[in-house]
């Protein structure tokens, strides 16, 4: 049986809108605002109903332009690896510091995307990040926390 993925996404959006609407009704407003013509929950409540309306229409109405994605040709593995690297980058950037994490993020991304020109990979990671960091920190005066560089005495 063929499942129309667009309809599945629309169904998910319908459920999401229902949850949004439920949460909108739970918003705590001030007692004196409870019966006001407009309070903090008015707009979200209407929005929830509009979400239900359009996603509901998408589910029940025919889909003349069905999108068929050729999953076999898609590079899921490399995409997932890159997302995981980005998450690790996000998790370590504050603790380790901008320079080392960013350089490693770039170097490993080049590697997992299939690059093997080591010198170019190195030049476009460590020295590149150092130059960019100098531009941000040194020229534009944007503070960049870097415990690693502080520990080795490069940064004050």
């Amino acid at each position, binding site marked *: 049986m063929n499942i129309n993925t667009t309809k599945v*996404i629309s169904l998910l*959006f319908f459920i999401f809108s229902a949850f*949004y609407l439920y949460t909108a009704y739970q918003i705590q407003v001030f007692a004196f605002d409870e019966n006001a013509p407009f309070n903090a929950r*008015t*707009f979200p409540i209407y929005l929830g109903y509009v979400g239900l309306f359009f996603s509901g*229409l998408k589910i029940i109405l*025919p889909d*003349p*332009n069905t999108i068929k994605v050729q999953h076999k040709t898609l590079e899921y593995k490399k995409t997932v690896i890159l997302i995981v690297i980005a998450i690790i980058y996000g998790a370590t*950037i504050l603790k380790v510091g901008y320079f080392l994490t960013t350089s490693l993020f770039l170097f490993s991304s080049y590697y997992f995307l299939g690059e093997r020109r080591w010198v170019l990979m190195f030049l476009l990671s460590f020295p590149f990040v150092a130059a960019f960091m100098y531009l941000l920190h040194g020229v534009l005066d944007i503070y960049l926390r870097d415990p690693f560089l502080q520990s080795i005495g490069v940064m004050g």
Partner: protein
Amino acid sequence: MIEGILIGLTTALTLQNILMVMLGCFFGTIIGMLPGLGPMTAIALMIPITYGFDPATGLILMAGVYYGAVFGGSTSSILLNAPGVPGTVATSFDGYPMAQQGKAGKALAIAAWSSFAGGTLSAIYLLFMAPSLSKVSLSFRSPDYFALMILGLTAIAAFSSKGQFLKAMMMVVLGLMLASVGQDSLSDITRFTFNNMNLTDGISFVLVVMATFAMSEALTIILKRNDPTSAAKQVSLTELGSIKINKEERTKMYKTIPRSSVIGFLIGVLPGAGATIASFLAYGMERNIVNDEEKEKFGKGSVNGLSAPETANNAACSGSFVPMLTLGIPGSGTTAVMLGALLGFGVQPGPRLYMTNPEIFWSIIMSMYIGMVILLILNLPLIPYIARILAVPKNYLIPLILFFSITGIYVMSFNNFDIYLMIGIAVVATFMRLYDFPMPPLILAFVLGGLMEENLRRSLLLSNGSWEFLWDRTLTACILLTTILIVVWHIYKTMFKKTKG
């Protein structure tokens, strides 16, 4: 107006601002040239940098990036048959065949001159139209604004997605929902934060733009790198041929450019329409106007066929500034990004902008002229060199885009949560892109969300909670009627197609 022009020139012609236009045009051209990366990505990547400048300079930089990216998109259309932006798809119809005939240099030169002429002419139209429209829009009240925003969002949903109106409307709702996260502007009550302190201030506009455009575009490029339909045949990037345009070709362009610039500008002014529709309409119109002999050449390397969409898409770019500058309602996804950046600067665009911040209003218009001249000076001689950037391997390009996106967010918040949130939104956006859920309506809705709620609040309070404000004023009623017609027409079309099937 003369005084305004002088104010604009004084602001735009400072050394710093000229440098910004040059840098913007240059980087915009490079980013726009890379297939898959359009003006919105280019501008999104620039936003963190612009926060270091004053609003006028920041906006001048972004405007330069915008024109540069549109021009850059034409280069990849002509050389690779892979349009960098949807607005340059029509350029590839005749530009790519011309390049295949060994006239790539000429095709690029025709594109450059047409872009220049289209942009310059439409900047003149803007100069006359914007102040008068500003005066008219001063009579607008909250209900009119509320109705106008609904119309803008509906129109962008209708125009930005071919036959995918309901999907686009779902993206509009999602954008508004994302905008409602955080503290309510009037009562300070937190909404949809789930007791997470990081969400109290709401979701950052830059984060949403970076995630839905820069990052998700990069992820889509990796995901589809083996897709045979996205692989492009390549024209030699080292043998581009002469960039000289002969007299006969010039004569053809003289006729095409004025009419295409008018249609481009007018389409650009309409909310949601933008460069893509403008370029296709100009191409179609030109084909109907020319003689039979010239008509035969369309699709095989026609000068008119290349010049018309190129003129129109640049004219539409200037046109899309009209609703943003005069009404405070962006006409396209790209101007929505710019509006968001302006709000970040603490500047409220709208009918009063040219009275409260005349230097911003006029310097943007003036920087358009300067930008066009710089684009031409910069791009014509550099065409052979710039074209080689298209050979940059994706293995380097993708990580660098991700790096710029994450750094952009990191330097603004110094917060891990924002990075995770950005990655999460980017993954969802990438998945939705695969199924043709358009992103510009989401961005426009996210930017307009706060303003829309504010105008609804004022309208409801003034009418004591009655919804009569929707039809009390003729203007409000007319705008809403147009919106209803668009919605009903698109739903009817969806149902009718089924009956046919």
